[in-house]
């Protein structure tokens, strides 16, 4: 609840800061401080309850699960501000506005992760999406950025429309927007209901860029300014996943059989297309865009089996994936050349940065001792906990994970084993230390995932 109220308030504050402060650096500092404050407020809610008690009329309800995920997103955003603040300043003149939009997105995140009413879901997803359209086109002199924004906006509008139609059908079936009312255990299954659920499934799959609704992702991620790609690919995607999980959690028990069939097809396609297409990319930025599709495939396992493993897994996955991707994008944003060759010989020039980037890539590939291993592990375990019925899916997922090693390691090879002179801008000592700290965090989570997961319970 704190996130919704204060996210909006601090966003407005941020806009005023833009009027008062002329120096971009100061704006960044203010944004960082406010984001830390937001994270603290959310942590406060986890331990002590919300600051303001608002009667939400059963529209919103927070749980430990979503608060923890909010906290992960906020923490990731603090790290993101620290690592990429300078890049945000470089995008254009309206720095304060960019920050304000990010705060507004967090308001949307707050709603989308705690809704109990389909209207709130719609509201949350829209509040997340509209600022994103603007951020994608923030670099307005760059045609690619503008194209990406338009593409994203058009496609996003369609998905919004589909979601609304789905909600309308569900309302038609049960006469209510409440999640608890269309919980299939009490509602008779009708064409309206199933149709509605399928339409919502489609629009949510669009938001998490699951195949076959992924076509916007590579273009938008590639076209958007690199800093905002990083934000979109991590924090926003996690938020969409939490909303997705919440939507189907209640109905799962009844439709399990059919649901698993549908979702397993989506997972298989997402993994296959995401991974195989990533192999053929020549630009690291585009590779990371496809890799984010591939990673979404693994995160979808949380929707495959709603069990203990899935809950812990998505928490871990959100943290591992966000940290590694934000770190990797922060490194990428410093590079002159985004192609694989652009990284040639990088380790000689910037050994510390290259080391941290290696840890991030290992984590994305799911190698033990990094957080990525346990996050993938939990996902596989969640699907296996129900028995070996979908063994083919797991074998496929694991083979896809091996494929992903191929393209992540290409960057490592370029950095360490090939000769060349990679050019990187503005690598300050502070940036290096931060990057190493994030890498250390990835390793700590990889050895002691319990350090994070315990917050789910206490």
């Amino acid at each position, binding site marked *: 609840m704190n996130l919704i109220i204060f996210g909006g308030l601090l966003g407005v504050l941020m806009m005023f800061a833009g009027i008062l402060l002329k120096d971009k650096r100061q704006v960044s500092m203010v944004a960082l401080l406010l984001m830390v404050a937001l994270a603290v407020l959310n942590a406060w809610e986890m331990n002590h309850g919300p600051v303001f008690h608002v009667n939400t009329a059963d529209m919103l309800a927070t749980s430990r699960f979503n608060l923890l995920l909010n906290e992960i997103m906020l923490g990731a955003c603090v790290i993101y501000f620290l690592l990429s603040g300078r890049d945000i300043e470089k995008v254009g003149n309206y720095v304060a506005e960019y920050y304000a939009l990010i705060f507004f997105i967090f308001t949307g995140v707050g709603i989308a992760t705690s809704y109990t009413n389909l209207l709130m879901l719609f509201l949350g997803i829209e509040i997340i999406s509209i600022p994103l359209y603007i951020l994608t086109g923030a670099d307005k002199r760059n045609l690619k950025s503008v194209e990406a924004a338009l593409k994203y906006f058009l496609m996003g509008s369609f998905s919004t429309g589909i979601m609304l139609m789905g909600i309308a059908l569900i309302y038609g079936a049960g006469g209510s927007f409440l999640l608890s009312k269309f919980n299939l255990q009490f509602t008779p299954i009708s064409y309206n209901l199933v149709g509605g659920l399928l339409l919502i499934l489609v629009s949510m799959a669009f938001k998490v860029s699951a195949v076959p609704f992924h076509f916007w992702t590579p273009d938008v991620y590639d076209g958007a300014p690199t800093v905002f790609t990083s934000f979109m690919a991590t924090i926003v995607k996690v938020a969409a996943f939490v909303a997705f999980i919440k939507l189907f959690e209640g109905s799962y028990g009844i439709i399990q059989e059919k649901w698993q069939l549908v979702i397993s097809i989506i997972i298989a396609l997402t993994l296959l297309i995401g991974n195989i297409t990533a192999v053929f990319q020549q630009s690291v930025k585009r590779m990371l865009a496809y890799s984010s599709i591939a990673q979404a495939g693994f995160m979808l396992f949380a929707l495959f089996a709603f069990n203990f493993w899935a809950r812990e897994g998505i928490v871990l996955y959100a943290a591992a994936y966000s940290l590694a991707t934000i770190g990797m994008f922060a490194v990428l944003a410093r590079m002159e050349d985004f192609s694989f060759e652009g990284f040639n010989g990088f380790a000689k020039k910037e050994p510390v940065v290259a080391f941290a980037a290696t840890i991030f890539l290992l984590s994305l590939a799911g190698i033990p001792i990094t957080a990525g291993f346990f996050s993938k592990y939990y996902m*596989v375990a969640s699907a296996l906990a129900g028995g070996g019925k979908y063994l083919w899916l797991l074998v496929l997922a694991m083979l896809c994970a091996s494929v992903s*090693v191929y393209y992540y390691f290409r960057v490592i090879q370029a950095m360490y084993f090939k000769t060349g002179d990679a050019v990187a801008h503005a690598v300050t000592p502070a940036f290096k230390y931060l990057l190493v700290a994030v890498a250390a965090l990835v390793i700590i989570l990889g050895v002691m995932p319990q350090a994070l997961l315990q917050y789910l319970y206490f």
Partner: protein
Amino acid sequence: MILVSFIFLPLIAALISFGIKQESVAKTVSLLASLAVLGIVAYELTLPAGSSALQYSRIWLGSINSNFSLLLDGPAKITTLLTAVSFVVIFLATWKNSYADVNQYYGLMLLTMSGLMGVFLASDALLFYFFWELALVPVYFLCSKWGGEKRIPVTFKFFIYTFVGSVLMLIGIIYLYNKTPDQSFAWKSFKAVVLINKEQLYFFWFFFVAFAIKMPIFPFHTWQPDTYETAPTSTTMVLSGIMVKMGLFAVIRWLLPVFPEMSSKMGNIVVVLSIIGIIYASLIAIRQDNIKRLIAYSSIAHIGLMNAALFLHNGYAYNGALLQFFNHGINIIGLWIVVDIIEQQTGIRKMSELGGLAHQAPRLAIMLVVVALANIALPLTNAFVGEFLMFTGLFQYNVWYAVVAGISIILAAVYTLGMIQKVLYGEKNERFAVKDLMPLQSLALLLIVAMIFIAGVFPKPMLELGQAGVKAISAVVMK
């Protein structure tokens, strides 16, 4: 508590080594660390069975019931001893070699050692998997950065090959975890798992393929000769001497006790595959001109025999295989040391271009002959005892298998003696001069030769080390 130092001592030394700039200090730190580990291992070996220092357990991931638990049983004693001895010998023998970024090289070597120790000690399936993958990562960097030409694609093939194998094993581990009576990753619980026939069939192969790729067994061996050839030689020593034992060791700890029925049902297929590999690799070895590839193929043949021995369900064969774990490691490291010395001085790997080394470097020649004879398993050398026991087991299992596999002894003599002839004798190539062994190299090779003869004449201590392990396996498998 002492067991933990097997893993953490090299790990800490590795971290120290990364921070050191001077070459000699990095080398000294590595050597001291490996010596210290060897000392601790030797101390552990003197402890009586059942001593509390042979086990260690601590909660690691409480909520999913995975513990940081280590166990030093018979097979583990042999493999950890091999690891500790090998690293000391490798560091001694390659003391004079110079590498770019030497501190990183040694740091990665120590990390590998740490990972290997973890694999051999882990008695928790998740922990085992963790180390299994972890041991691979430093090797990837070692081979890709310091290897010969074509190192990047070759190492990459090796990495992805083994990675594919191990992720399938991960599925198996999780599946078995769900089937354990107490939802735990402990080795004991895994042994108590009851599976229906079909499950056993699937997961036996999931596990076995992971191990077979690591060993490697025909037809999963294609990564091996290329990798051995391009990797820096001291890394090849680790790969061929110790890392292949990961696969064999894993069969003993994680395959035979967990799938006893399926192991005996599938035993025949595995043995046949191994024998095909033995003959196939021996035949290819004869045709090799590149000395490194020759040793690589000869290693496939030896490993094939050991793997076959593990599936014979025969006490002699187990004993021989465990003995050979150690001996094969020592012998092949000896061969690589000689090859490394020749290559460092001449830059040549082709046997057709070498020749007449016996005149220039008589001491080197003697060492090479001894190690090579041990490679053929001549009586008095260590490998004889092990191979004799394994062939006894094979003979009792199926006479014809023993006959076919026995041909490999002759083939081994053909290619090994051929190698000696071409490298040491014959016409001398005038383009280079080879200096004889330097003191540290002599020391390393003398150690190896001493181990070859001692283990060849008096194998009892080593046999006793493995004995407890053999009994334990036999009790489960040969019901």
